[in-house]
């Protein structure tokens, strides 16, 4: 209590950092020294002014690029791991079924369509996190892209226009499929979220299926088969409902009534 009041005491007093038992002594000292009291009060006001000047920043929406610096790198990496694990299990299941089928009939066979969904999900998890090389041919050369992929798949392809549901074409690439080449189109919304469309032209069953949904790890897939063509639309970032909305738009253009 008898300790002289130092500059450090005054600073700590302004910041509420002073131990309780010392506060009274400093307050009493300040009462006797009005100039210092005013100075310390100014410090407190400046601190308050500073906090209110920048308080708004705390409520600003965080730019996506900042969250991406931490989160998606992680979730996408996990998605990838989940995909490869899932694929391994799937291949194991197929192999197991093939071994098994020589003895008894399979209860659940991985039909062509579910393999389609699984492969599409793997392709999505592989290419959608790509920053520098998401596609081989960009949307600026859309005509060339579609002509090239059509030629390789041996059928006339179309890249659906998804602007009406908020997605625009980034571009596409050629992928190896089970038996032959596969076309892969990537779309992106203005927030940077991506969906990919996986297109096969060699479906063996050659029959049409209804719209189906599958979830592979963190990737959701809507897929359908139309004759020899198989389509799968994947996303790891948007809800099932939102993905359905995009898939419907694609479906209507690819399978006009």
């Amino acid at each position, binding site marked *: 209590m008898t300790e002289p009041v130092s*500059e*450090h005491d005054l*600073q*700590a007093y*302004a*910041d509420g*950092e002073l131990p309780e038992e010392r506060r009274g002594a400093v307050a009493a000292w300040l009462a006797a020294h009005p100039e210092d*009291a*005013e*100075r310390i*009060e*100014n*410090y407190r*006001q*400046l*601190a308050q*002014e*500073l*906090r209110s*000047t*920048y*308080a708004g*920043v*705390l*409520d*600003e929406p*965080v*730019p996506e*690029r*900042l*969250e991406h*610096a*931490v*989160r998606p*790198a*992680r979730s996408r990496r996990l998605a990838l791991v989940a995909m490869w694990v899932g694929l391994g299990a799937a291949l194991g299941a197929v192999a197991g079924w093939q071994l098994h089928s020589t003895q008894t009939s399979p209860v659940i066979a991985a039909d062509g369509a579910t393999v389609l969904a699984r492969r599409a999900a793997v392709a999505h998890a592989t290419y959608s996190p790509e920053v520098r090389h998401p596609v081989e041919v960009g949307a600026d050369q859309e005509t060339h892209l579609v002509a090239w992929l059509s030629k390789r798949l041996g059928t006339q392809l179309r890249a659906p226009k998804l602007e009406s549901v908020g997605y625009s074409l980034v571009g596409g690439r050629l992928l190896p499929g089970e038996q032959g080449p596969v076309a892969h189109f990537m779309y992106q919304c203005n927030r940077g979220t991506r969906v990919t469309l996986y297109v096969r032209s060699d479906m063996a069953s050659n029959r049409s299926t209804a719209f189906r949904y599958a979830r592979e790890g963190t990737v959701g897939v809507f897929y359908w088969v139309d004759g020899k063509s198989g389509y799968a639309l994947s996303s790891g970032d948007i809800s099932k409902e939102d993905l359905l909305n995009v898939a419907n738009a694609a479906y209507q253009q690819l399978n006009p009534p």
Partner: protein
Amino acid sequence: MNEAERLVELIPRLRRYARALVGDRATADDLVQDTLERAWAKLHLYRRGTDLRAWLFTVMHNVHVNRVRASRATDTLEDEMPELAQRAPQGDALLVRDLDRGITRLPAEQRAVLLLVTLEEMSYEQVARTLGIPIGTVMSRLSRAREKLRAMMLGQPLAAKLKVVK
């Protein structure tokens, strides 16, 4: 909650501090992004159970110091182009930005201490740990920063506010 989620949760505070530290939004967010990327890459060096916020601000401090050092070359260039370096302040924004401008005129090491104490409301001990300096240095930088800022503000419109002391 895992570390990634806690990092994300701290982003608004990093942005606030960065905004006050460097002034404009784009540069501040660049600093935050570099900080998060570095923190994410170095997360294995963070000791679980210790203060993640202090650790993150340490990372930001280091990133900032490196960025300032790296931009020195650009500064020298600008000195040779006075028409760029002495760009006129923009009329109306001047009033609103008085306090920000005052802060950016403080020496960098004093600015960091003042912002951690006032904006982040860190204890002196946390500031010392975050910046890797003795607590006595924290105190002396803080008191110099405050006195400078007060002197600047007394010559500014904010002075009217400051003088109203009962």
